[in-house]
């Protein structure tokens, strides 16, 4: 869950005294969309995104005679003049959940990760967040299937389910319990690593639990 394991370490950086032109060139060559700006000691000064760079350029409706002049001026602009300085950051000991809340509450796409001296050690993007949760829940893991079980409130249901998996020698990689909402029943999600999901379902049903089938009559 620590951000340290999911961030991109030592990301490409620029110096705040470099120009917009250089930043545009850099983003054109790489798939990322954020550039952290650091001083000579590696201390974070700000961040620029492709959006900041786009909005620094003159709008297309500007008079064509002035446009070239404005554009060349913009291209020479120092990044320190357009960067976000009060950007949100996290420490390496922060968690993926911290990042989730920050992304949710702020319209940002990337979080610089800093050490105690505010030196940049990594960057964590929304893409990294998705990947982290994907790994955590095992989404797209080859060779797995998910079984949904209605949570009947049995206080020992979790241990019983695991017991069944052990007894049947089924490799189970995730067990997740979720309480009811207005739209869904209380549910337990079990990710198993076997083709023979029917045998698993039968064993669970034999123990008296209900397999939730995610459709009624399609």
């Amino acid at each position, binding site marked *: 869950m620590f951000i340290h394991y999911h961030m991109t370490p030592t990301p490409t950086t620029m110096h705040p005294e470099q120009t917009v032109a250089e930043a545009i060139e850099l983003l054109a060559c790489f798939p990322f969309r954020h550039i952290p700006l650091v001083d000579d000691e590696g201390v974070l000064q700000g961040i620029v995104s492709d959006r900041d760079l786009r909005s620094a350029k003159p709008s297309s409706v500007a008079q064509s005679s002035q446009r070239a002049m404005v554009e060349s001026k913009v291209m020479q602009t120092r990044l320190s003049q357009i960067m976000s300085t009060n950007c949100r950051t996290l420490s390496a000991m922060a968690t993926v959940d911290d990042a989730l809340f920050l992304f949710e509450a702020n319209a940002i796409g990337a979080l610089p990760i800093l050490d105690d001296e505010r030196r940049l050690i990594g960057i964590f993007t929304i893409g990294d967040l998705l990947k982290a949760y994907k790994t955590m829940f*095992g*989404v*797209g*893991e*080859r*060779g*797995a*299937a*998910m079984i949904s079980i209605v949570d009947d409130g049995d206080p020992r249901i979790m241990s019983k389910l695991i017991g069944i998996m052990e007894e049947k*020698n089924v*490799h189970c990689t995730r067990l997740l319990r979720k309480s009811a909402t207005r739209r869904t029943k209380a549910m337990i999600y079990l990710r198993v*690593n*076997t*083709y*023979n*999901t*029917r*045998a698993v*379902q039968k064993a669970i049903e034999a123990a008296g639990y209900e397999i939730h*089938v*995610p*459709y009624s*009559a*399609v």
Partner: protein
Amino acid sequence: MRHGSSLILVTDPAYSRHDTGGGEHPEIPERLQVIRDAFDHSPFAQSIHILLPRPASRAELLSFHDEAWLFRFEEAVLSGRTYVDHPDNQVCYESYSIATLSAGAGLSGIDRIEQDAGQDIIFCLTRPPGHHAEANHPLGFCFFNNCVIAARYWQNRYGRNRVAVLDFDAHHGNGIQSALESEPDTCYISIHEHPSFSYPGTGWEEERGLGAGKGTVLNLPLPPGAGEEQVRRLLPKIRSFFEEMQPEALIIGAGFDAHVEDEMSGLAFSTPLYTELGRFIFELGRDFCSNRVLSILEGGYHLPRLGESAAAYIAGLLKDD
């Protein structure tokens, strides 16, 4: 029934000796027997011919698989192991050589298609199945990827580079997608139960191919419970995909575990739906591939429905206008 077409069954008695250990394992020799029985009691019983396959050569296996996997597989069975990597992948002492014979069925079938100019219906009645097998490991009862090895053979032996693989098994053929997704000439179309619910958890609609192969993968996941109505809606999509890809040869991953009574998937296909699929596939083959269509058995585990569904599929392939 179409005049003059025979059903060529590429099959070998050795397939029944691939022993998956009994117990609750669903991939059992009886699967082939129920299909044979259903065919023998079908309206096309009189037009069945048996073609004994040759084993796939080492070079042909290596057209997809890694040498290391071949060694590992062979070593595992010869040393008496009962499964490879995962208890799903049960083996017996003979499983390696039987798997090479299973992979060979498609190759013998292709030779036949190329000789008789697509006149006959070719069905590889074979096991172990193949579509989950990856280049370097087995998965989901599959050891060698029969469909991929056949596609490579069609390319290498007959120069038919534009091979399409259409897989209507209830499960996504992850191994076929891995093999073909980065290349521009081949394509893979799969109808399967949605990966959020179903084994092997792959086959997302968003995956359309990689790099030079962008646009060559068509994943068509269906929600649990989907049947005729949902499948019919997919057919025009598959047809226009063929118009785009213009394949010259077609391999069918013919699995029958999407049947409503087959508990290995939540899909709810009816038996007559397989006739519709057979008819649709015949038309694809006729309109795009000069009838060069090779069907290879994949899954299907409900014994009575398996025989019936496979016979329904063949009836569709053979159906007259």
